[in-house]
């Protein structure tokens, strides 16, 4: 047991080596992957998220923890998949057509991964067609659109239109964000939600997956 608490600590401290080592040891001792994820890794990332919220951690610490988590997940994922466990949700994320800003989008992606989502990052300057394609390919639950330029915000609408024309709009929840984007704009173009920042995006993503499950 003390061993496993160290997994939690390693992730919080952003120590990928230790997190990987302990995960291996634990598996060798027959601890189930599910237990590791549910009882140590997710709580660790929640703690990291909390420290970030309280301004005790900056992004570098956050990303290092994400890496420590990912390192461990790397060996757990195949086992989890074999046992039929599901990720928290499947997310497609990208910065819309014409826009190359990606720092914010990358943070959102990292936080979602930290929270156990399976994230496919399409990068920047992503055309509506590419989003449509990825949704079908990845069987995504959520599509996240980022835009930092007011002149590329309209591409969010175009992307929603493309999802509609392709007949996949009802398969996914759409969340949008980026500095110029507002709650009201989300409503206006018929997106399912808006989040102001990366931590809020995680909470919202969880809610959206829940809603989709009950829909």
């Amino acid at each position: 047991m003390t061993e496993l608490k160290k997994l939690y600590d390693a992730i919080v401290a952003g120590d990928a080596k230790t997190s990987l080592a302990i995960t291996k040891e634990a598996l060798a001792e027959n601890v189930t992957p599910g237990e590791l994820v549910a009882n140590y890794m997710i709580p660790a990332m929640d703690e990291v998220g909390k420290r970030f919220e309280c301004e005790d951690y900056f992004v570098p610490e956050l990303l290092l923890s994400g890496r420590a988590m990912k390192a461990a997940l790397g060996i757990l994922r195949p086992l989890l998949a074999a046992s039929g466990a599901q990720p928290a949700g499947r997310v497609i994320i990208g910065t819309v057509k014409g826009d190359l800003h990606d720092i914010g989008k990358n943070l959102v992606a990292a936080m979602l991964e930290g929270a156990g989502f399976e994230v496919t990052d399409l990068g920047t300057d992503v055309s509506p067609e590419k989003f449509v394609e990825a949704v079908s390919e990845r069987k995504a639950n959520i599509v996240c659109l980022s835009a930092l330029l007011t002149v590329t915000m309209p591409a969010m609408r175009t992307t929603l239109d493309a999802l509609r024309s392709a007949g996949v709009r009802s398969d996914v929840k759409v969340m949008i964000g980026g500095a110029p984007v507002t709650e009201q704009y989300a409503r206006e173009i018929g997106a399912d939600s808006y989040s102001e920042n990366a931590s809020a995006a995680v909470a919202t993503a969880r809610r959206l997956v829940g809603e989709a499950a009950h829909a």
Partner: protein
Amino acid sequence: MLETPSLFRYDSLAIPDVNELVFGKAPRPVKCGFGLEIGAGMVFPEVNFTLPPIGISEETWPEILHEYEEMATNIVRRAVAMKVPGVVLEFELLPAMTEKPEWGAEVTTLLRRHLAAAYDQHKMLSALRVTPTDIRDQGKPPLLREGEPCDRLLRSFELTIAAGADIISVESIGGKEVHDRALMMGDMDAIVFALGVLCPADMRWLWKRIVRMCAQSGHAVPGGDSACGFANTAMQLAHQKMLPEVLAAVVRAMSAVRSLAAFEEGAVGPSKDCAYEGPVIKAITGTPISMEGKSAACAHFSPIGNIAEAMCDLWSNESVQNVRLLSGSAPEAFTEMLAYDCRLMNVASERGQALALRDCLTASDEWLSPQAAVLSPAATIAISRAIVAEKDDYRRTVAAGHTAVAIIRDGVAGNGLALSKKELQWLNRIEAALDALPATGDELEAALGEEYHGLFRPASYGR
């Protein structure tokens, strides 16, 4: 294509005396546009403006031209009403207008027409700064010295110059592909590599070309570049509590080296508004600078609203969308605000109070944030000296970083600069990383984490 490294390097300060480093006055004033002389004693507003939410396409283009007509009309009307002694308009192209350089040129022509009319009818002195978007960062890793985006960027300079741009600027992005990642990881080695090795290499390549194009035109002046994608990104991230303020402050100081490269290649100023490294440029080169501070709260918040004004020659609002406020349009409102700030500075100069005002502006921010601390006239001189004492860009960058750390430590020790425990830990960490750096950029490159090597193309930097 490898280039011969340029030979000219500043090794002393054009303004060695801190009491000569003040708003409105630069040893090498710039004449441009409609009778404007910048840095010759007066500060002028530099008005920035941009589109409200609207897609840019063939379809919307007429509407977009209409927006620019409206903005130009309102700004010029207010400038005339305020009896400004001169004004600069900055047109920052949006990416689509650089992708299609003819669009950028068309708006340039439009704006220039308004300034010409104001000169004819009201004798209003003015100049038009045009800033194409550096669109070379589309590939991963980006291709900087060839390829379609690079060609279009160069063509955009050409066409906007031909269309009447008086001052040319750009916020170039060479090195950013590494710097972005490094910044987010708080990785000083990679930050220094980006700022001290990659950035200057791209800057020198690009600015050689810009300077040549301006010279050929006979009218346009090469204004300068901005470390916006580097230091302002760090500032924004610190503002959002995503990065420590001390890191943003150190990055700011170090970023001056890459922006200086443009001037060693022939840029003459006025430097770009969002380049808060401007004061260092001014101290070293003697060229006039544009700055933005509280007047740019429409575009971004900052802890350097007053101190940024202390040494400016143009005073800018960075960017404001053409939205309606209660008084009128936002670009018009900000024109008025800038004009009043400039009036105050110019009257202070007339009355022999320029230094007193400069010092009040400085003191009001200086020890409230490490980012302000590295921007004071004294800090500017210290950083500038550290830079010119070194011979190559890499060592200059490291030296600027060390100096910034020292300034912040002094502030904490003797001037009441309050840093949280977390910030102090980061300051130690930054200093330790700087101390541990190797002697040359090549060694640093070799030692760089594997994750960074895939991010950039050495050939893009002539490496």
